[in-house]
Protein backbone atom coordinates (compact mmCIF):
# COMPACT_ATOMS: atom_id res chain seq x y z
CA UNK A 1 0.00 0.00 0.00
CA UNK A 2 1.35 3.46 -0.91
CA UNK A 3 2.24 5.39 2.26
CA UNK A 4 0.05 8.45 2.81
CA UNK A 5 1.29 11.87 3.86
CA UNK A 6 -0.77 13.75 6.50
CA UNK A 7 -1.88 16.14 3.74
CA UNK A 8 -3.14 13.26 1.56
CA UNK A 9 -4.96 11.78 4.54
CA UNK A 10 -6.66 15.14 5.18
CA UNK A 11 -7.70 15.30 1.51
CA UNK A 12 -9.25 11.82 1.73
CA UNK A 13 -11.12 12.76 4.90
CA UNK A 14 -12.47 15.87 3.15
CA UNK A 15 -13.53 13.72 0.17
CA UNK A 16 -15.34 11.31 2.50
CA UNK A 17 -17.22 14.21 4.13
CA UNK A 18 -18.27 15.61 0.75
CA UNK A 19 -19.43 12.27 -0.66
CA UNK A 20 -21.39 11.34 2.47
CA UNK A 21 -23.58 14.43 2.00
CA UNK A 22 -26.57 12.79 0.39
CA UNK A 23 -29.26 14.07 -1.89
CA UNK A 24 -31.67 16.78 -0.74
CA UNK A 25 -34.08 15.86 -3.53
CA UNK A 26 -34.26 12.27 -2.34
CA UNK A 27 -34.70 13.44 1.27
CA UNK A 28 -37.77 15.40 0.12
CA UNK A 29 -39.10 12.42 -1.89
CA UNK A 30 -38.69 10.17 1.16
CA UNK A 31 -40.37 12.77 3.38
CA UNK A 32 -43.28 13.21 0.96
CA UNK A 33 -43.84 9.44 0.78
CA UNK A 34 -43.75 9.12 4.57
CA UNK A 35 -46.19 12.00 5.08
CA UNK A 36 -48.41 10.73 2.25
CA UNK A 37 -48.76 7.25 3.72
CA UNK A 38 -49.57 8.71 7.16
CA UNK A 39 -52.19 11.07 5.75
CA UNK A 40 -53.82 8.35 3.62
CA UNK A 41 -54.04 5.91 6.55
CA UNK A 42 -55.64 8.64 8.69
CA UNK A 43 -58.11 9.48 5.91
CA UNK A 44 -58.95 5.78 5.56
CA UNK A 45 -59.73 5.65 9.28
CA UNK A 46 -61.97 8.72 9.05
CA UNK A 47 -63.68 7.27 5.98
CA UNK A 48 -64.26 3.98 7.79
CA UNK A 49 -66.04 5.76 10.63
CA UNK A 50 -68.07 7.86 8.21
CA UNK A 51 -69.29 5.10 5.90
CA UNK A 52 -68.57 1.57 7.18
CA UNK A 53 -71.86 -0.11 8.06
CA UNK A 54 -73.95 2.88 6.96
CA UNK A 55 -73.16 3.47 3.29
CA UNK A 56 -71.51 0.41 1.72
CA UNK A 57 -71.13 1.94 -1.77
CA UNK A 58 -69.38 5.06 -0.46
CA UNK A 59 -67.20 2.88 1.77
CA UNK A 60 -66.16 0.61 -1.12
CA UNK A 61 -65.41 3.63 -3.33
CA UNK A 62 -63.30 5.02 -0.49
CA UNK A 63 -61.37 1.75 -0.18
CA UNK A 64 -60.69 1.67 -3.94
CA UNK A 65 -59.52 5.32 -3.91
CA UNK A 66 -57.28 4.55 -0.91
CA UNK A 67 -55.72 1.50 -2.60
CA UNK A 68 -55.16 3.43 -5.86
CA UNK A 69 -53.64 6.40 -4.00
CA UNK A 70 -51.27 4.20 -1.96
CA UNK A 71 -50.35 2.27 -5.12
CA UNK A 72 -49.67 5.46 -7.10
CA UNK A 73 -47.57 6.86 -4.24
CA UNK A 74 -45.49 3.66 -4.03
CA UNK A 75 -44.93 3.56 -7.81
CA UNK A 76 -43.92 7.25 -7.86
CA UNK A 77 -41.60 6.65 -4.90
CA UNK A 78 -40.05 3.58 -6.52
CA UNK A 79 -39.33 5.46 -9.74
CA UNK A 80 -37.98 8.68 -8.23
CA UNK A 81 -36.21 7.57 -5.05
CA UNK A 82 -32.49 6.92 -5.69
CA UNK A 83 -30.96 7.15 -2.24
CA UNK A 84 -32.34 6.51 1.22
CA UNK A 85 -30.44 8.91 3.48
CA UNK A 86 -28.99 7.39 6.64
CA UNK A 87 -31.77 6.64 9.14
CA UNK A 88 -34.68 7.15 6.73
CA UNK A 89 -35.61 3.44 6.51
CA UNK A 90 -35.59 3.02 10.30
CA UNK A 91 -37.69 6.16 10.83
CA UNK A 92 -40.15 5.11 8.11
CA UNK A 93 -40.65 1.59 9.52
CA UNK A 94 -40.93 2.78 13.14
CA UNK A 95 -43.45 5.53 12.33
CA UNK A 96 -45.45 3.21 10.06
CA UNK A 97 -45.61 0.67 12.89
CA UNK A 98 -47.00 3.25 15.35
CA UNK A 99 -49.44 4.65 12.77
CA UNK A 100 -50.78 1.19 11.87
CA UNK A 101 -51.11 0.26 15.56
CA UNK A 102 -53.11 3.41 16.34
CA UNK A 103 -55.12 2.86 13.12
CA UNK A 104 -56.09 -0.65 14.29
CA UNK A 105 -57.11 0.71 17.71
CA UNK A 106 -59.11 3.41 15.91
CA UNK A 107 -60.95 0.84 13.80
CA UNK A 108 -61.84 -1.15 16.93
CA UNK A 109 -62.96 2.07 18.65
CA UNK A 110 -65.05 3.21 15.67
CA UNK A 111 -66.80 -0.14 15.25
CA UNK A 112 -67.28 -0.89 18.93
CA UNK A 113 -67.84 2.40 20.69
CA UNK A 114 -69.41 4.87 18.20
CA UNK A 115 -67.24 7.80 19.30
CA UNK A 116 -68.24 11.37 18.48
CA UNK A 117 -66.43 13.23 15.69
CA UNK A 118 -65.23 15.75 18.28
CA UNK A 119 -63.09 12.96 19.74
CA UNK A 120 -62.50 10.90 16.64
CA UNK A 121 -61.27 13.64 14.29
CA UNK A 122 -58.32 14.56 16.57
CA UNK A 123 -57.62 10.85 16.94
CA UNK A 124 -57.31 10.56 13.14
CA UNK A 125 -54.73 13.37 13.23
CA UNK A 126 -52.94 11.47 15.99
CA UNK A 127 -52.80 8.40 13.72
CA UNK A 128 -51.02 10.40 11.00
CA UNK A 129 -48.78 12.28 13.43
CA UNK A 130 -45.89 9.75 13.79
CA UNK A 131 -45.40 9.64 10.03
CA UNK A 132 -45.74 13.42 9.69
CA UNK A 133 -43.09 13.91 12.39
CA UNK A 134 -40.82 11.32 10.71
CA UNK A 135 -41.34 13.10 7.38
CA UNK A 136 -40.39 16.42 8.94
CA UNK A 137 -37.21 14.94 10.37
CA UNK A 138 -36.32 13.28 7.06
CA UNK A 139 -36.84 16.50 5.12
CA UNK A 140 -34.62 18.50 7.46
CA UNK A 141 -31.63 16.13 7.14
Amino acid at each position, binding site marked *: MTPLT*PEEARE*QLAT*ADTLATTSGTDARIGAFTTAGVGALVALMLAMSKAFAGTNTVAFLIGVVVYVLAIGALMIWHGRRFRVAN*RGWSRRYRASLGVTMTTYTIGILWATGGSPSWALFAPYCVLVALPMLVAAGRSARR
Partner: protein
Amino acid sequence: MSPGTTSPKHEVHPRHRLNETIHAPVRFSIVATLAGADQAEFSFVRDTVEVSDSVLSKQVATLESAGIVKVKKGYVGKRPRTWLSLTAFGRRAFHDHLAALRDIAGG
Protein backbone atom coordinates in the same frame (compact mmCIF):
# COMPACT_ATOMS: atom_id res chain seq x y z
CA MET B 1 1.78 -11.92 32.41
CA SER B 2 3.54 -12.24 35.75
CA PRO B 3 3.25 -9.42 38.30
CA GLY B 4 5.88 -6.80 38.05
CA THR B 5 6.61 -7.28 34.36
CA THR B 6 5.53 -4.85 31.66
CA SER B 7 4.91 -5.59 28.03
CA PRO B 8 6.87 -3.43 25.62
CA LYS B 9 4.50 -0.83 24.22
CA HIS B 10 4.36 -1.53 20.51
CA GLU B 11 2.90 1.41 18.62
CA VAL B 12 1.65 0.33 15.20
CA HIS B 13 1.82 3.06 12.57
CA PRO B 14 -1.73 4.06 11.56
CA ARG B 15 -1.04 3.20 7.90
CA HIS B 16 -1.11 -0.48 8.91
CA ARG B 17 -4.73 0.01 10.02
CA LEU B 18 -5.86 1.25 6.61
CA ASN B 19 -8.17 -1.22 4.89
CA GLU B 20 -6.49 -2.27 1.62
CA THR B 21 -9.80 -2.94 -0.15
CA ILE B 22 -11.25 0.46 0.78
CA HIS B 23 -7.98 2.34 0.24
CA ALA B 24 -8.18 2.29 -3.60
CA PRO B 25 -9.51 5.73 -4.74
CA VAL B 26 -12.66 4.63 -6.59
CA ARG B 27 -13.60 2.07 -3.94
CA PHE B 28 -12.98 4.69 -1.23
CA SER B 29 -15.39 7.06 -3.01
CA ILE B 30 -18.02 4.33 -3.40
CA VAL B 31 -17.85 3.40 0.29
CA ALA B 32 -17.84 7.08 1.36
CA THR B 33 -20.97 7.69 -0.73
CA LEU B 34 -22.74 4.69 0.76
CA ALA B 35 -21.69 5.69 4.31
CA GLY B 36 -24.17 8.57 4.22
CA ALA B 37 -27.05 6.39 3.11
CA ASP B 38 -29.09 3.37 4.19
CA GLN B 39 -28.99 2.30 0.56
CA ALA B 40 -28.41 3.97 -2.78
CA GLU B 41 -29.37 3.14 -6.32
CA PHE B 42 -26.55 2.10 -8.69
CA SER B 43 -27.02 5.16 -10.94
CA PHE B 44 -26.86 7.53 -7.96
CA VAL B 45 -23.48 6.08 -6.89
CA ARG B 46 -22.25 6.12 -10.50
CA ASP B 47 -23.18 9.80 -10.91
CA THR B 48 -21.76 10.79 -7.51
CA VAL B 49 -18.45 8.97 -7.96
CA GLU B 50 -18.29 9.97 -11.65
CA VAL B 51 -17.34 6.61 -13.13
CA SER B 52 -18.76 4.46 -15.91
CA ASP B 53 -21.22 1.61 -15.30
CA SER B 54 -18.53 -1.00 -16.03
CA VAL B 55 -15.97 0.54 -13.64
CA LEU B 56 -18.57 0.79 -10.89
CA SER B 57 -19.73 -2.82 -11.48
CA LYS B 58 -16.17 -4.10 -11.23
CA GLN B 59 -15.33 -2.16 -8.08
CA VAL B 60 -18.64 -3.06 -6.43
CA ALA B 61 -17.97 -6.74 -7.17
CA THR B 62 -14.62 -6.42 -5.36
CA LEU B 63 -16.28 -4.71 -2.40
CA GLU B 64 -19.06 -7.30 -2.35
CA SER B 65 -16.62 -10.21 -2.34
CA ALA B 66 -14.80 -8.56 0.59
CA GLY B 67 -18.13 -8.38 2.49
CA ILE B 68 -18.12 -4.57 2.56
CA VAL B 69 -21.03 -3.87 0.20
CA LYS B 70 -24.36 -5.62 -0.20
CA VAL B 71 -25.99 -5.69 -3.65
CA LYS B 72 -29.75 -6.05 -4.01
CA LYS B 73 -31.35 -6.39 -7.43
CA GLY B 74 -35.01 -5.79 -8.14
CA TYR B 75 -37.52 -4.25 -10.46
CA VAL B 76 -39.63 -1.10 -10.42
CA GLY B 77 -42.29 -1.96 -12.97
CA LYS B 78 -40.29 -3.42 -15.83
CA ARG B 79 -37.15 -1.45 -15.05
CA PRO B 80 -34.33 -3.35 -13.36
CA ARG B 81 -32.88 -1.59 -10.34
CA THR B 82 -29.74 -2.34 -8.35
CA TRP B 83 -29.45 -1.08 -4.79
CA LEU B 84 -26.14 -0.84 -2.97
CA SER B 85 -25.59 -0.58 0.76
CA LEU B 86 -22.78 -1.04 3.25
CA THR B 87 -22.88 -4.20 5.35
CA ALA B 88 -22.41 -3.87 9.12
CA PHE B 89 -18.86 -5.16 8.61
CA GLY B 90 -18.32 -2.63 5.81
CA ARG B 91 -19.53 0.25 7.97
CA ARG B 92 -17.16 -0.80 10.79
CA ALA B 93 -14.27 -1.23 8.33
CA PHE B 94 -14.86 2.24 6.89
CA HIS B 95 -15.12 3.73 10.39
CA ASP B 96 -11.76 2.13 11.30
CA HIS B 97 -10.27 3.26 7.99
CA LEU B 98 -11.33 6.87 8.67
CA ALA B 99 -9.91 6.64 12.20
CA ALA B 100 -6.55 5.55 10.74
CA LEU B 101 -6.70 8.44 8.24
CA ARG B 102 -7.38 10.89 11.09
CA ASP B 103 -4.36 9.55 12.97
CA ILE B 104 -2.18 9.97 9.88
CA ALA B 105 -3.60 13.45 9.24
CA GLY B 106 -2.83 14.38 12.84
CA GLY B 107 0.81 13.53 12.21
